[in-house]
């Protein structure tokens, strides 16, 4: 028992000399679905290095960006007379495409789908508060990649 205790002390001493105070990354994750047209983005991204001013900005570090649990590449914000928009760059993962399609449909109902271009699908979900657009490139009717940024536009009343 004493041997075990001594061993533990030495191992702890060894590791403490080699390590450093780690940052708790999980608590720093920002969920973009929490952003509304009123959100103060400086407060929203407080504690993280960002490039924001009052009317526009971007945040690029995907370690801290989620949209409905999906890791997204980066987000650009723009506030204009017609309202706020979030332009979100996505990673080209089919599973993400399916999650977004299901999530937005469950929240806002069936989307309007434009399939007039070959190998492309354009989705649009609308509600009183916002309009969401997403487009994908297909190959043999299967998801190939996102065609553009996912845009969430908050509508000014």
């Amino acid at each position: 028992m004493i041997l075990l205790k001594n061993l533990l002390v030495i191992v702890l001493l060894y590791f403490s000399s080699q390590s450093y105070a780690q940052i708790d990354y999980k608590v720093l994750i920002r969920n973009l679905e929490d952003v509304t047209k009123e959100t103060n983005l400086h407060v929203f991204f407080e504690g993280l290095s960002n490039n924001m001013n009052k009317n526009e900005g971007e945040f690029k570090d995907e370690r801290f960006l989620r949209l409905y649990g999906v890791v997204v590449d980066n987000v650009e914000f723009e506030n204009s007379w017609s309202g706020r928009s979030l332009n979100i760059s996505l990673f080209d993962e089919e599973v993400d495409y399916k999650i977004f399609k299901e999530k937005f449909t469950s929240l806002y109902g069936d989307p309007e789908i434009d399939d007039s271009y070959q190998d492309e699908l354009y989705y649009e979900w609308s509600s009183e508060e916002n309009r969401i657009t997403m487009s994908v490139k297909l190959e043999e009717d299967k998801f190939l990649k996102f065609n553009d940024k996912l845009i969430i536009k908050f509508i000014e009343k």
Partner: protein
Amino acid sequence: MKKISIIIILLSFVSCAQDGNKYNLSEIHSPEDLSMMIDKMKEDKVEMDTVYYKEIKGQGMHYDGIPVSKMSFFNENGLTIITDSINYSAKNLLEAIEAKKGFGKYEENEYSLENIFYWDDENENLKLEINFVDGKHLAKMGEKDYAKLEIIYPKHYTIPLANIHRKLSNFDLKPEYELQISRQNCTYEVFLDGISLTSVVDETYKDSQEIDLNTFLLSSGEHKISIKANSYANSSEASYLKVYVIKKEDDKEVLVEKKFTFNNTKEHNFEMTIDCKTPFNLKGWKSGKDLRKDSLLKNKVIALYEKVGKSILNKEEQTISDLFYISNFETRQSIYNLSYKNSLAYWESWLETFKNTYKYNVAQNFTIEYSEDGRLIYATPIKKLDMLVVTGKNYSRSFDFYLYQPQNSNELKIIRE
């Protein structure tokens, strides 16, 4: 006794484990540290490639426990470290640096797929490049991803002019005031509190410009902007000036928006007042003497420019630091430039001037413009472009200053460049 033997055995075990991991590169924070580490490695007969550039591979190097496959350095002012491609080295190195220095500036190049983080401070500049092998992105880094860390140790100078950033205040709010002006068929001159900021004398000048006002705002309160304008004599079209005064903080606020239209050739004067709230309160030329009736003023102007020229020629570092300190301090405070890099670059520009100059010339024939209260002056040479020009082989630098004379002095001082 039994207990002590066990501890000794375990300690020797730990020591053996550390032996293969004995050069912690995160302990290097200066060229001196780097030199010491290299000396230690040489003593230990660590293999080094020193033919073209200095390179050391593996052999017990790590960064806070993260295995390093290669370290290279061209001189003692910096080094490059490449981690091993095992055991989440890239992720661990990024997190180790963030734990010490906080979140760096992140740049993602979507074309080259480079993911680079920067941390800059006076003591070390770090550039960390993440290279994905089996990882996809920063939120999903792989076990085999590796990182390249470049560390540069900036030079340090003890001269006060190279260390102004240490004395500057950092304010929460940093309002910047700017005048935007565009013209048609006219010449004009802009004044802030009676100080001439710019003069557009003919059609060869550009038709619109932005003028920083902060540099000549000493403190909060009402400030007067005045513009003298003249229509072109031969123009049949109407002349106008469009003027905006913008306050930039988080947002842009238009303080003044005016269009002045005029069509005869007599001089027109336009005035406007802006209410500025500056977080700084600078002395500037506030307590300067009224120089309008100083009969020796021309000689004093020449003496000041001569002093600068001679100091450059004689490489008098301390004199240059004394001459330019207040002007540089106040200018940088007014535009919130707290960067140590700016101090370094400014001082190194002086070292460059010392090195390259072998003669100087001061204009002897010039006119003097006075601010409305006569406390601030600006000399404009006749038939020359600048008051002081220093030259050397393929080198030239010119100087013009705003000057004032403190109450307790008989000499002019530089207060803005």
